[in-house]
């Protein structure tokens, strides 16, 4: 991050470099962000707050809305927790061990980013749906219902967000100095103690930022969930699907209130992750 700062100072000293100069490019870029991003966001906030905070609270605390929001929050939190553990484990295996198929596994980690989330939902229904081979067996033999139930929501969120923790932890783990781990081993610490006391403290920032980013994405997820959840109000209807229902039934108040709550959460989480990540690099390269 030091190069661009130095570069910026130099650029200002040099005479105009591009034909239209700094002013035009900067205005074009800022207008583009304002038109695409800021104006629509402002409109939602204005509409959500139009009738005051009390009305907003009333809309969100209606039983169906409240159940939808709670479902989105806890399924996302559960996903983020599982993702933090499995993502860290995957990163650890990819960095520390060599085994056949390792580069294939490394490539598979990115697959969920390339697959449209609606397609993800379809895939899960095809495999784990009640009429499908695996899903039917699980339901008959074990009584586990996955699709059109809450486990399906968590499963879809796990699929979609798998890369985030792995890709946040992997480079940090790779750049980690192994000397402290070796020192701990020399002093007689067992492998688990070494991981918990030496390795993990160095990784908590990337784990947290990866898990939080996936949490933020999961709260608003729609494409995969609308296919796998069955959308039963009060039971398997998430916040995003609730908004869709309100939009379709032209209930502007309900849609705006829930949208605003979701937007505010996304906003805070994204800025917080951004802040976390900016703290990271100094400690990383020991």
């Amino acid at each position, binding site marked *: 991050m030091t190069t661009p700062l130095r570069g910026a100072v130099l650029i200002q000293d040099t005479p105009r470099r591009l034909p239209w100069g700094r002013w035009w490019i900067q205005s*074009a870029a800022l207008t583009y962000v304002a038109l695409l991003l800021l104006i*629509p966001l402002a409109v939602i906030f204005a509409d959500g707050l139009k009738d005051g905070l009390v009305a907003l609270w009333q809309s969100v605390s209606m039983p169906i809305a409240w159940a939808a929001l709670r479902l989105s929050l806890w399924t996302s939190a559960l996903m983020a927790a599982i993702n933090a553990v499995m993502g860290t484990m995957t990163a650890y295996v990819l960095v520390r061990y060599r085994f056949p198929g390792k580069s294939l596994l490394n490539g598979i980690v990115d697959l969920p980013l*390339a697959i449209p989330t609606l397609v993800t939902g379809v895939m899960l229904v095809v495999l784990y749906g009640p009429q499908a081979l695996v899903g039917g067996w699980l339901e008959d033999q074990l009584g586990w219902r996955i699709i059109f139930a809450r486990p399906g929501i968590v499963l879809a969120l796990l699929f979609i967000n798998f890369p985030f923790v792995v890709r946040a932890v992997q480079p*940090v783990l790779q750049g980690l100095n192994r000397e402290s781990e070796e020192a701990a081993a020399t002093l007689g610490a067992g492998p688990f103690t070494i991981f918990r006391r030496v390795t993990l403290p160095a990784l908590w920032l990337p784990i947290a930022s990866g898990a939080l980013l996936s949490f933020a994405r999961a709260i608003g997820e729609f494409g995969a969930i609308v*296919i796998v959840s069955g959308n039963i109000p009060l039971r398997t209807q998430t916040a995003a699907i609730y908004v869709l229902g309100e939009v379709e039934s032209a209930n502007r108040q309900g849609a705006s209130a829930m*949208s605003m709550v979701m937007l505010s959460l996304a906003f805070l989480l994204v800025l917080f992750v951004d802040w976390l990540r900016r703290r990271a690099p100094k400690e990383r390269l020991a």
Partner: protein
Amino acid sequence: MTALSEQTRPADPAGPRPADLAPSGSFWRRGLLIGLVIAYVAVLILGPIAGLIAGAFSEGFAAVILALSQPDVIAAFRLTVFIALITVAVHAVFGTALAWVLVRYRFRGDRLLNGLIDLPFAVSPVVVGYMLLLLFGRTGILAPVLEALQLRVAFALPGMVLATLFVTLPFMAREVMPVLEAFGIEQEQAAATLGASGWKTFWLVTFPALRWGFIYGIILTFARALGEFGAVLVIGGGVQGRTETVTLFIFRALDERQYVAAYSAALVLGAISLALVIGTELLRRKERGAPRLF
């Protein structure tokens, strides 16, 4: 890719080091960890992919071809690609400009702007569509203006393009920014010293260096645009044959129990996105030998 692109090129000056630290019992621990990770990936990711392939071909290859050659499906694919192409064209120009501004200039609020760019990753697509409805819908804020101009945005192509533009906003900037940062400005200064104009410097010096970031940004934008669903559903309405993209067709086909058609279209859409992303990555690795995914 926010999280990913900035952090990926790990510095590993010592090169790969011997893997196992503690010798005792490490064979079992290692096997257990690797086994767990592979099982997780198989259940979560590979199984469902295999399931979709099997599901699409459950009634044979001919049924897939028949399902995909319905006029509705062809119209949906054409509309989807058209929207994605417009999106890519807009972001290629303005996303690069945005990356340039964020890397090269300091101004008030630049850090906030840098954080805000990632917002579309976290905003629910349904909310994106709804925002546009509030602006351009029948009772929207801009409705009188649109009426005066005889323009139709909601439930028409322009609205769907806007929704896709919003959702794909971060990709271009996030791919170009790290490359631009790493490139620095020394070579541009050299070119300027030698008398090249700003425009010439950009095309002959800066742009070639940015090429892979630029191409990768375009591919990711395109792939993401192909798969957009929630925002396009809300603002476009999914009118069969008119504002129905591939994702909307899949959704309707599932609803109407046309399973083979839904699975086939989903398979083709997923395969196109995958091929684009993997293909670009292979190309880039071949050219640079850099082990970097996203």
